[in-house]
């Protein structure tokens, strides 16, 4: 019977070509959306690498002030640490968790150079964010006098730079001939939120005037303390600008930067698919109306009613298969050519989901007109001719 379908479809290739193209385009759009969803899900399912629930981020701007910035920052920091409501405070550069700021640099070890996100922090950073150390240790105050700046890298940076070698104690080189010594490894660190791919990250102990403070407050600390904190540090430097945000809020906002466009894209795709579905439904209904005598004939020659339904659904599935096959040939180029540098599994999931969706869509669209076709009275259909 399948051979019979292929013959019918092949012999009507001109009229079926448009349908195949429609299914191909739908497949490609679905492949894009599904791959994006798979990519987002894959990123989302990987741990963030830090805890944010009780952590506030204080960004400090000193405007035109140039005098003794370091000292003034230090006294603000000391003041924050002194509150009993504060569990830990950590100074860091502006690329705090869930901020839009980034600091990228090329990092080299032997002949391998990779680009990574750089986080210059103090020794309290890991504690403030609850970062778990997989190997080695986090840097401490005692590292300050060392010949090389102590650094902690994440797992993916380790894999890309050192492969299976142990990176602990190794010296890496940064642009400008700066050298850091690796003292520890963490698993993940997704600064830009849950949807960020796990990219190479380098933490280093910094002595620079750092413009942000991560404040981990004790459980139960509320907005009253926030108001008190802002008032008191504001009084310490009245001309400076202090901005406090909860990491929890920042995370939500950062995640929305990915989830909202994805949602919009999915809705647009949904409308597109609805159009495709209506198109397929219309084409098949018209097709059946044009083939009433053929239906009558098949019934006369011994096809039971369900065989007619199967026949028309089967024809549509064969047409869908041709469209999907062409789509798969195109889609498989993405992992083969490593387009967008994504893992092959993302594309494979995209292909699988797009294929399944097409088959479900085509079956649903074909089912009703095909059931209607099976209800056609053979005597009436044959007489119409």
């Amino acid at each position: 019977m399948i051979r019979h379908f292929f013959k019918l479809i092949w012999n009507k290739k001109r009229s079926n070509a448009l349908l195949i193209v429609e299914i191909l385009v739908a497949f490609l759009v679905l492949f894009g959306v599904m791959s994006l969803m798979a990519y987002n899900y894959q990123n989302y399912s990987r741990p963030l690498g830090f805890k944010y629930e009780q952590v506030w981020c204080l960004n400090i701007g000193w405007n035109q002030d140039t005098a003794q910035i370091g000292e003034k920052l230090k006294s603000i920091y000391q003041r924050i640490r002194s509150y009993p409501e504060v569990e830990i405070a950590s100074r860091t550069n502006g690329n705090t968790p869930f901020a839009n700021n980034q600091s990228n640099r090329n990092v080299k070890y032997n002949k391998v150079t990779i680009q990574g996100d750089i986080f210059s922090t103090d020794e309290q950073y890991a504690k403030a964010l609850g970062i778990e150390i997989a190997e080695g240790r986090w840097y401490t105050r005692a590292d300050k006098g060392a010949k090389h700046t102590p650094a902690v890298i994440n797992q993916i940076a380790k894999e890309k730079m050192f492969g299976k070698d142990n990176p602990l104690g190794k010296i890496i080189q940064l642009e400008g001939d700066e050298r850091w010594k690796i003292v520890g490894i963490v698993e993940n660190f997704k600064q830009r939120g849950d949807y960020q791919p796990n990219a190479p990250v380098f933490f280093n102990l910094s002595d620079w005037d750092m413009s942000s403070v991560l404040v981990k407050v004790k459980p139960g600390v509320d907005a009253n303390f926030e108001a008190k904190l802002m008032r008191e540090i504001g009084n310490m430097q009245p001309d400076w600008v202090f901005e406090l945000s909860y990491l929890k809020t920042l995370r939500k906002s950062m995640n929305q930067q990915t989830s909202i466009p994805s949602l919009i894209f999915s809705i647009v795709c949904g409308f597109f698919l609805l159009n495709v579905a209506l198109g397929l439904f219309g084409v098949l209904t018209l097709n059946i109306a044009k083939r009433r005598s053929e239906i009558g004939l098949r019934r006369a020659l011994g096809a039971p009613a369900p065989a007619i339904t199967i026949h028309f659904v089967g024809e549509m599935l064969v047409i869908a298969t041709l469209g999907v096959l062409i789509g798969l040939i195109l889609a498989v180029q993405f992992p083969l050519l490593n387009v967008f540098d994504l893992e092959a599994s993302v594309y494979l999931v995209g292909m699988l989901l797009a294929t399944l969706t097409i088959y479900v869509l085509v079956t649903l669209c074909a089912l009703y007109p095909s059931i209607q076709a099976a209800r056609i009275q053979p005597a009436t259909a044959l007489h119409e001719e």
Partner: protein
Amino acid sequence: MIKLSGIEKVYRTSSIETLALDNINVDIQKGEFVSIMGPSGCGKSTLLNIMGLLDEPSKGEVTINERQLKGYKDKELARIRNQEIGFIFQSFHLINDLSVLDNVEIPLLYRPGSGSKRRELAKEALEKVGLSNRMKHFPTQLSGGQKQRVAIARAIVGRPSLILADEPTGNLDSNMGNEILNILLQLNQEGSTIIMVTHDENMAKRTNRLIRLFDGRQVF
């Protein structure tokens, strides 16, 4: 072979009730070649459709090969149509998108069997109607007579015991009509039971028996 007892067929719409067949009693024996004649609209095709299980009578009984078919389900009726009845239509009803050979194979698609066996049987049927040289052609490339021969091949490919022909020569000129009738006579001589609806008195005379209908009633 086929027996119709007290057949009545009424077509109902919301306002009109039309009696298409009224008390038809027919008993056709195995190996007979029977013609059904009558003016247009007298119910010939309706009768043939009931005989071919394409339509249900409003009243009465149809018996084929000793089986009284009242209450048979669609699937069972389809199986009987497929294995025991062959149809030939005035307008051929060939599928233009399929080759001659593929058209002839259609009845065999609805019964178990391999593709090669189907092909073999279809070729045999086409040889029987003298069209073995046109197997790869498409219906649009054939003359009317050739199309009807393809339809005959399709009707006999499943080796049915009963062939129902609804004005098989109606769309053909007299030469081609005779050619088709000769094939049907040949099939009858080989053992097939044939029931043919026709308008042509001369053709009806060449069959074993004639059933005349007028206004849905059998006339003698």
